[in-house]
């Protein structure tokens, strides 16, 4: 009996002694994995730019947390959830990665979200759009930084109605993502007092939008909402320009358009397009300074909001590690990130909500006419700023189990 007491005491002492060691950095370094599309349709929006942004955050922080070196690795998930989840498991299980960053393509992000929860690591989302990550699928290991479908629908929908675009026609990609985007935007438009004159569904990756665009033109709606993404958006904008839709007085509203898309389209084609983003390089002095540094490393390419989000998220993650002195418990790190207010040169002051949603303002932009643009990458004029408390879905409406 007495011996067992002794044992228990020794065991307790042992645990107490090992505690400081456990509250340490796993593998003797902090390893951040940037997982995104390096080669396909999202490579310009995320890709190497996100790797550069993560490295810049590490350098700006000083390269070390509490004397422990920080390393950035990256891989290409090819937009396939099985490839992505395979890499994530391997990174967490055998390669000592502590946090995965970026991850565009909602299906891949949702898969990584679950694996990160299971392995108790940290997931910093910048590239993925789905608002489910802070909704029904929310996780104590995930922070969703840059934007989400709700914020885009809300920003573009309500701001456009308020600035006079009160009749809408939707051009929707016929799959789950398109339907969700259309549904969310339609709700916002109706709530803001606008009306929806009609909608048309087009198959995914269709090369010919002529019949859909003619329907949109015939509807005489002031705004044609593009509830699609990637190549479909680019094609619909290009073909709309050929039909003279914008010249004829109707405006296109891109629900998921990035500055690199505008760059690819050219101002002649993209002019007049209205879109929502959370970051633009020409917003203020600190975004200009950072973007200049970024562009120097990226052959003159300006950052997208996803790149900015990767930088800011990694910086805040490192801050939390420094405050905590450990990267071993992913849940604790994310809890620390939520506890500390955020402050970075790109998004300003903000906070991370209990459901993992990072709050900051969103901006409504209109693409300039070629004559208005003063130089390369001078593409947007600011139409409206949506304050942080209005930009994202209210906490109670997300159905996140973490919200009691």
């Amino acid at each position, binding site marked *: 009996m007495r011996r067992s007491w002794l044992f228990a005491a020794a065991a307790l002492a042992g645990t107490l002694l090992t505690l400081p060691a456990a509250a340490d950095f796993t593998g003797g370094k902090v390893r951040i994995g940037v997982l995104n599309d390096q080669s396909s349709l999202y490579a310009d929006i995320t890709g190497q730019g996100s790797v550069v942004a993560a490295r810049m955050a590490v350098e700006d922080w000083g390269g070390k947390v509490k004397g422990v070196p920080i390393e950035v690795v990256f891989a290409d998930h090819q937009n396939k959830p099985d490839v992505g989840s395979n890499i994530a498991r391997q990174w967490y299980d055998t390669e000592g990665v502590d946090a995965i960053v970026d991850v565009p393509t909602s*299906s891949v992000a949702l898969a990584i979200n679950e694996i990160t929860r299971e392995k108790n690591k940290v997931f910093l989302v910048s590239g993925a759009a789905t608002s489910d990550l802070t909704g029904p699928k929310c996780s104590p290991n995930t922070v969703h930084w840059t934007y989400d479908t709700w914020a885009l629908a809300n920003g573009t929908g309500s701001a456009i109605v308020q600035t006079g675009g009160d009749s809408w026609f939707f051009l929707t990609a016929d799959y789950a993502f398109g339907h969700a985007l259309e549904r969310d935007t339609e709700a916002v438009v109706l709530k803001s007092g606008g009306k929806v004159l009609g909608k048309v569904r087009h198959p995914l990756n269709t090369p010919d939008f002529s019949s859909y665009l003619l329907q949109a033109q015939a509807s005489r709606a002031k705004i044609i909402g593009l509830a699609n993404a990637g190549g479909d958006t680019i094609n619909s904008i290009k073909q709309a320009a050929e039909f003279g839709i914008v010249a004829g007085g109707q405006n296109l509203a891109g629900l998921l358009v990035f500055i690199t898309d505008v760059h690819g389209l050219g101002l002649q084609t993209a002019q007049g397009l209205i879109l929502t983003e959370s970051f633009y390089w020409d917003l203020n002095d600190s975004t200009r300074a950072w973007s200049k540094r970024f562009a120097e490393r990226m052959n003159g390419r300006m950052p997208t909001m996803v790149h900015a989000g990767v930088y800011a998220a990694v910086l805040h993650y490192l801050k939390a590690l420094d405050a905590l002195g450990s990267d071993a418990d992913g849940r604790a790190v994310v809890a620390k990130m939520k506890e500390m207010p955020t402050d970075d040169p790109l998004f300003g002051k903000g906070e991370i909500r209990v459901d993992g949603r990072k709050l900051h303002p969103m901006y409504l932009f209109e693409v300039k006419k070629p004559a208005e643009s003063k130089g390369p990458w001078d593409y947007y004029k600011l139409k409206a700023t949506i304050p942080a408390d209005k930009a994202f879905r209210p906490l109670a409406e997300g159905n996140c189990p973490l919200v009691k």
Partner: protein
Amino acid sequence: MAARSEPAPIAVAVPSDVLRHQKLGIVLLAALLLVAPFVFYPVFVMKVLCFALFACAFNLLIGYVGLLSFGHAAFFGTASYAAGHAAKVWGLPFELAVPFATLCSAGLGLVFGWLAIRRQGIYFAMITLALAQMLYFFYLQAPFTGGEDGIQAIPRGKLFGILDLSNDLVIYWVVAAIFMGGFLLIYRTIHSPFGQVLKAIRENEARAISLGYDTDRYKLVAFTLSAALSGLAGGTKAIVFQLASLTDVHWTMSGEVVLMALVGGLGTVFGPVLGAAVIVSLQNYLAGLGHWVTIVQGLIFVACVLAFRRGIVGELAHLLKKPL
């Protein structure tokens, strides 16, 4: 089938020393399976095994019946959705979800096969591709598949209520057993009198018919068996990776399995296994190259067709003058 008035398949006497090599190969394969999880990352090996079983099932059709199906992703993907839905929504355990998925694919195989075996060659390939594409668009729209997002966070659960499959090593042994079971079933089928008739159909269908065999029935059974085993692979993969997505039903998956069988060696017993290992390793270790992976795959395909048309194992068998 036996009840019909057709000649009993002739039991072809295969010299036992020929089979000895294959038996030795099976023992070697089993030994490899025992060591693999301690050398490689178990989740990676499981991926190889799932695709190896898929490639073997595909090879049963092209290698032994001479039917090139270009729609096998339909069976693989259907099973992964079925297993995912059964495990996640209905809460079925592993031992029920995977057989259910296999049954779904077998049923689908019966329907697809019934339609497709009426044609041969390129027409057969086109019919299977068309049916698979129809199914792909169905899964893209159907609400239970989650569309682009797929079915996520499928629970691995416990096998028979005791073995905790969330442990990578435990599930590895289960997957290894499933693979070995499927592989041995195919091996047995190939060497059975039934398999001999299949080969006869491959070599000369008209002659097989003239001998009195109802070749359509043989082809349909082989097609269904191949679909069921593809389903077994797909269902297992869904549970291992806790994910069922459109990738599994996309036509590129049908292409990948052709490539695996081709690289390893069509119509060889071990070829598809090696082919799957090569292709999955390429995808895994070259992931950092991004788009180059597909280019490398394409180059391998070209090299294979130009330089060693029999595939890796096929060429080896040719050198040794023994079937492998």
